């Protein structure tokens, strides 16, 4: 079976990889590109550990076929920090102890980044519903919600310029 050649942008860089027609985008990112930040917790789109942003949309990478990335723009947790400067969400997660084991953290960071791009000033309830597709089994979500709310405040005061790409 011949493999499919895919060209796209990942975290601002040109990228290309070979994949099977029915390979998930998550497997392609992890196995072909070598970006293992997105995790597979379920493979069925229920846990959000594989959250990435494809063409501006928050998706579960386990539910997308890798060839769908052709010509697309992908953002993963590995691209959130700008050089040495952490994204305010990353800083807030550290300062609020919003992670314990850390395996769900990349997905939460990407999901909350997507939220704050759509809604820069969310209420606690809006945060809770926005991340309801991401499972965390360690924290009870309390510190994650607080970190996201704190990051939103920080970003309002100190907007990020040229974020992401």
């Amino acid at each position, binding site marked *: 079976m011949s493999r499919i050649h895919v060209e796209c942008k990942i975290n601002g860089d040109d990228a290309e990889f070979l994949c099977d027609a029915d390979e998930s985008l998550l497997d392609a990112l992890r196995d072909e590109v070598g970006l293992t930040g997105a*995790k597979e917790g379920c493979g069925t789109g229920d846990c959000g550990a594989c959250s990435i942003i494809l063409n501006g949309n928050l998706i579960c990478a386990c539910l997308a076929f890798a060839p769908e990335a052709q010509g697309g723009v992908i953002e993963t947790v590995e691209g959130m920090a700008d050089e040495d400067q952490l994204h305010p969400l990353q800083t807030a997660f550290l300062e609020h102890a919003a992670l314990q084991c850390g395996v769900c953290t990349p997905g939460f960071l990407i999901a909350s980044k997507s939220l704050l791009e759509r809604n820069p000033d969310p209420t606690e309830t809006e945060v809770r519903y926005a991340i309801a597709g991401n499972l965390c089994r360690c924290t*009870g979500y309390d510190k994650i919600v607080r970190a996201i709310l704190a990051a939103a405040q920080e970003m309002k005061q100190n907007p990020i310029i040229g974020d992401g790409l």
Partner: protein
Amino acid sequence: MSVVAEDNSVNQSYKYVGTRPVRHDGLEKVNGKARFAADISKPRMIHGHVLRSPHAHAKILSIDTSKAESMPGVKAIVTASDFPLPKKDEGFPHRSKNLIARGKVYYEGQAVAAVAATTRRHAREAAAKIKVNYQELPTVMTINEAMADDAPLVHENLITKGSDKKEAKPSNIAEMDFHERGDIDVGFAEADFVYENEFTTEAFHQGYIEPHACLADTGKDGRSEIWCSSQGHFMVRSATAKMLGWETSKIKVIPAEIGGGFGGKTTIYLEPLAVKLSEKADRPVKMVMSRDEVFKATGPAPGTKIRVKIGAKKSGEITAGKAWLAYEAGPFGGSWAKLGGWCIFASYNIPNVQIEAYEIIVNRPVNIAYRAPSAPMAAYATESVLDHIAKEIDMDPIDLRIFNAVKEGDNQPGDSVASTGKYPKIGFKETLEAIKNHPNYKIPLGPNQGRGIATGYWFNIAQTSSATINLSEDGRAVVMTGSPDIGGSRASMAIMAAEVIGIDVNLIQPVVGDTETVGFTDVTEGSRATYATGIAVVNAAEKIVRKVKERASIMWDCNLEDVEWVDGSAIHKDGKETPISLPEITAEAKKTGGPLNATGSLETKGHGPAFSTQLCDLEVDPETGRVTILRYTTAQDAGTAIHPSYVEGQMQGGVAQGIGMALNEEYIYNQKGRMENSGFLDYRMPVASDLPMIETIIVEVPNPRHPFGVRGVGEVGIVPPLPAVANAIHDAVGVRLREAPMSPVKVLKALNQKNGANG
């Protein structure tokens, strides 16, 4: 907020203990670089896939791998015949039988064979070509089925452990445990009020987000290296060696980051298969479970049926407690029921007690520990019955518990788990008082809203730990321990080392060593890491301080007694020398005696039992039976909180899992014993929109047996939510839910029954 006991005079002067630095491994975990087991790859690596039983109970008549062997990319296949016959059941219950089926399968999802091939797809497709002939057998899925007189026997010759052997005949009861204190009949005769009821819970899973994964590389020299996610890599090493019939030291285990465990990663599933496949294929083999495999073949905590009878006087004094417990152990038994029995009345002084506990064999996956294993279900029964009694005798439910609460010197149950048989210094009453005095206890409630309180107890454990500290030339300290960091323990180790050595916590680099670089360390379980491994770290740090003082005395050419160590610097007692900082000492180390390092390695004793009291406010929708948690407050005795943020995190995480148990989570099986909800869509764990903020009150009654007063904090928080939710539902709508999970269907049914009875 936190509450410090009045007589605690020791912990006021710490510089680092009790602070909240950013965890040392945090950066890698927010930028995607942290390496969990499935993230690790090796050159020439191939992929393993496990063929699992579709049947809950069947004889294996034959296994034919010939067709699979000729499939593209296949490099190796293993079945039970590749592993030595178990000598006896070594280590955790029947690990060898669970690893790979031998002649019989006992539950859906049990491993039958494993294939390694060049791609995951090839491995999966080849596994599907392995032909297994099964002869299906009748299944036994529940306590009631297993204990019925005409129950099919899962094991034909199983005689109940702990029973009177002369009269015993084979049954599905693996073990029974009976103990009593006082005279139960006298106790109930003294009571003004007696209440008895039965409570059931369904099996639930630990639900860690990271599925089990490992990578094994077995060389021609008969040695193997394993990278894996576990709660204890020394356990992985010894258990894997036993399964293979190898010498322990032939295996090296390198701990990957662990993506949650909660007790579920205190055993092995894949590692011996991967080692054997790697040996046969002469290639590194990676194996990663799917979520479906995680549900069907790992975990769960047992379903239970528990009957509790408690008698009390009008004053609130409890006079008698009687309990009957049955726990679904899975196919090979365990001691979960016994553990539940030890916990069930542990929080209260009850002079007359009788406890019977039964371990039940069923065709379900082998149970493994889940955060304070067995205790939440026991608390569900006891704390629900106490709630009823408090209402009957018209007493505040917290006052009833304070009246009977255990304290230092009282009997602690479970003589083989407790270290002394008597409670050491504990902070149970303090947690009760903290909740009673909290403003949330007095917030007015609206219609269909209710308030419930419940308490929890957990033993905690101590065991063996090792730590090594190496000082680098620039005066920084690498603190290496053998405890996988499952929720921030690196930060705790660094804080304790910083406190002893007197240098900034950020000058400490805490690392988790592999099985060949750090001393033996038991599994991260029983809330023991910060307690026991913490003692090893303190021990090593104290030796380091002694050594750097010696070096200072050499540099000054003075007596050791003249050197004092203050805030990371050597100071001459008489002030006649300029103080020397730690970097100045380490820079000169070559001239004063060589590199500076020290090891702390010990069998710890004196863990402190943990208690939690929790307050739940909720609202019941009478139309749908849906329960919404409005507010949740938890008070827990941490002894001393080393890093309060991660103590709070443990408390909050335990509560969230407990709320999942209470409202949603359960294994659902069909008539054939096949699991029907083996994914996160249908096995419904709490998500962010299901929960409110979880308010924490850290109570600090220092454990006198730890240098900083630590008692374990990881587990007990999961114990009270089941009864706290049940008691709040009763308070809200007047129905006592005795079957967990208390899902909308069950709440609605109970409401309809109540309204029908009234109408």
